[in-house]
């Protein structure tokens, strides 16, 4: 069997679904004005933004007025964290997060430490990729104003105990933000039930385009604006709205909401099939992260004795797109902070491979990967001075 292109890098970015693309195209055409304008061109646009907001809210069990559109997941993360931090910086200055956050959270926390005198606790993870709830509890001080813990990790797909964390934060009067960029559309999320105060999401992980996202802000939570200016987004996020992107994000959430159970069961089956077959045929393989508490969409491995970039390159040559937390993909020194936090040795971490699935992924594609991957790993191992068979 030959397949042209097997795209298994959906945790990096998903293709835009045709029906989502269709939904947005109209908004580039003439006659669609600025949603803040009074004339009929503008008015029509406004109502489409409102519908999108409803759809995003529905997916999270939030209400529409708690949804604020942003220019992506990173902006949402920055806004949530800096918005609380800069607002309360003259009072208390302690933040809790984890070692395995996305850099949009991590670098924001480091910035606040370095430039604005905050104290940040970076929780470690256990070897299954999940935080220790007791450690979290004991990290809380009377100065803690904010906890930011990701819903699901982008490299290894592990899901944190969000509901427990939310309950603890609520009890202790700490604002709880979660970066759910990878989780939204892949698992069931209920911000009310889970006591989530703020939640970041991003369009391009759920079949909408890049450059649009949203921050859910629970009614009653007060934070500084990240982007000041015009009256858009009820004066909380200035800037003429990326209308087409917002409409697409709304559509994406609507689709995700309708098909969520099916999406989960389909992808979970494919993912488990992929993981177990790869583990069975390739020796010296480590599956990174918890096997159960993981996104249906992410399979992640480390293959000992080889290096990730060479592996990706070889896969690319047979039409398979994946990704690696190996440092050699970018020419830097250390493998990704997530793999290091797992306690893997550098040597093992360098051989990481993430294959991330989408609604478009088929059984045939999984079969193709299971056929092509083992000889590639074998070939690279045979070139490796670390490998002795």
């Amino acid at each position, binding site marked *: 069997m030959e397949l042209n292109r097997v795209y298994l890098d959906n945790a990096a970015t998903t293709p835009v679904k045709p029906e989502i693309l269709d939904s947005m195209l109209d908004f580039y055409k003439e006659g669609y004005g600025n949603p803040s304008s009074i004339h009929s061109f503008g008015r029509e646009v406004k109502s489409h933004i409102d519908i999108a907001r409803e759809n995003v809210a529905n997916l999270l069990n939030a209400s529409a007025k708690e949804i604020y559109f942003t220019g992506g997941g990173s902006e949402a993360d920055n806004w949530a964290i800096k918005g609380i931090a800069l607002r309360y910086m003259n009072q208390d200055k302690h933040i809790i997060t984890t070692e395995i956050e996305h850099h949009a959270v991590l670098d924001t926390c480091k910035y606040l430490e370095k430039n604005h005198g905050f104290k940040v606790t970076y929780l470690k993870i256990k070897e299954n990729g999940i935080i220790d709830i007791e450690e979290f509890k004991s990290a809380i001080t009377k100065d803690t104003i904010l906890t930011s813990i990701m819903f699901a990790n982008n490299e290894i797909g592990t899901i944190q105990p969000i509901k427990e964390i939310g309950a603890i934060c609520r009890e202790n009067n700490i604002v709880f933000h979660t970066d759910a960029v990878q989780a939204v559309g892949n698992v069931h999320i209920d911000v009310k039930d889970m006591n989530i105060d703020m939640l970041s999401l991003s369009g391009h992980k759920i079949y909408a385009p890049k450059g649009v996202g949203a921050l859910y802000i629970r009614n009653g939570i007060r934070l500084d604006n990240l982007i000041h200016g015009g009256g858009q987004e009820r004066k909380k996020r200035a800037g003429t709205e990326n209308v087409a992107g917002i409409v697409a994000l709304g559509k994406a959430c609507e689709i995700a909401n309708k098909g969520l159970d099916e999406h989960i069961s389909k992808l979970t089956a494919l993912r488990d099939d992929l993981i177990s077959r790869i583990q069975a045929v390739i020796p010296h393989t480590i599956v990174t992260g918890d096997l159960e508490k993981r996104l249906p969409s992410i399979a992640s491995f480390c293959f000992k004795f080889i*290096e990730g970039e060479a592996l990706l*390159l070889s896969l690319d*040559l047979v039409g398979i797109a994946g990704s690696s937390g190996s440092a*050699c993909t970018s020419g*830097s020194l250390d*493998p990704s902070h997530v793999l290091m936090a797992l306690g893997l040795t550098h040597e093992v971490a360098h051989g990481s491979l993430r294959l991330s699935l989408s609604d478009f992924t088929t059984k045939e594609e999984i079969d193709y990967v299971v056929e092509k991957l083992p000889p590639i790993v074998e070939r690279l191992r045979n070139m490796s*001075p670390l490998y002795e068979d």
Partner: protein
Amino acid sequence: MYSQKVMDHFTNPRNVGEIETPDGVGEVGNAKCGDIMKIYLKVEENVITDVKFKTYGCGSAIASSSMATEMIKGKTVEEALNLTNKAVAEALDGLPPVKMHCSVLAEQAIKKALQDYARKNNLDIPGLTDIEIDDDHDHHEEIED
């Protein structure tokens, strides 16, 4: 990102393997950084008659090993000593900036193998002893989804 030459040497690397009784062996890099390059030499009458490598590292490290070994095969020890990483990179039709250090590894591995050869044979090869092997990687940003 990579030239066709790089891709060719990555997919069909020349001189992969080990030499059973080498006259010189050089290893540079370390697993921590994600790259180890090991070069084996056979030297006869000051001429490199055979060379093999094993590399743990990225595509351009593998291609650099392949190209560098090709470039010193049949050359004298002095000629091999003069091989620069630039020459390797050029022979590969260039490398991306963040990947230049992979070619440095190749140059250094060869020099280390020649040092080993000189030491074993008590040779004093001009310009060899004062080579400083610098294992430093460039630091570059981690890029992320």
